[in-house]
């Protein structure tokens, strides 16, 4: 089974929340800024708990933060 192409809208959501910085988001969810950068770049997939924490910061459902990219066939 191949890897799911999981993407995220964190950068866009930060922008729509008063242009929140990566450091501000990192402080709110209790991780380092490097981890937020890695998540945004798709280099790290967070735990379910951290994913929910990020969604709670933006006050949106989880699937608005993380989603599976539909493959164009």
């Amino acid at each position: 089974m191949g890897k799911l192409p999981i993407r995220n809208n964190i950068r866009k959501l930060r922008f729509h929340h008063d242009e929140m910085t990566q450091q501000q988001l990192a402080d709110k969810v209790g991780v380092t800024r490097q981890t937020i950068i890695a998540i945004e770049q798709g280099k790290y997939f967070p735990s379910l708990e951290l994913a929910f924490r990020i969604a709670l910061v933006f006050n949106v459902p989880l699937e608005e933060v993380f989603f599976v990219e539909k493959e164009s066939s």
Partner: protein
Amino acid sequence: MSYQERRAIVSFISTILISAIYSAYMVQRYPAGNPYSADIFRFWGSFFLILIPVSIVARIVIHILFNIITSVATKEKEPSITDERDRLIGLKATRNTLYVFTFGFLLAMGALIMDMPPTAMFIILFCSKIVSEIVGDISQLYFYRRGV
């Protein structure tokens, strides 16, 4: 380059430096004569026992110097938290370290089976310690750079 990546590089360099300087110092104390004598075992026992505190102290000193230089040069302080990604990377790097050391340990035992002198076994053990630490540092750097 992030703080964690720089720390992995410094750890890599310090592993090589500490091992090279320590072995260069200890090789002068290697007892001459019968390779199966009790002196050889005493030498290797002290070699590994002294290596542990020397390595710990040297790493602490290097870590303090690294923090001072980093904060002066980049105004970046050591992250106050270790988050889930840091822990995951640490665990994966430790796993790789243990794989390599286990292989080295088996190789060292193989040297004894093949009737090689005890010194060969101890040298293989020491080399596998160095290589496993290097693999751990490179793994950390790789996971921080390429993702985990």
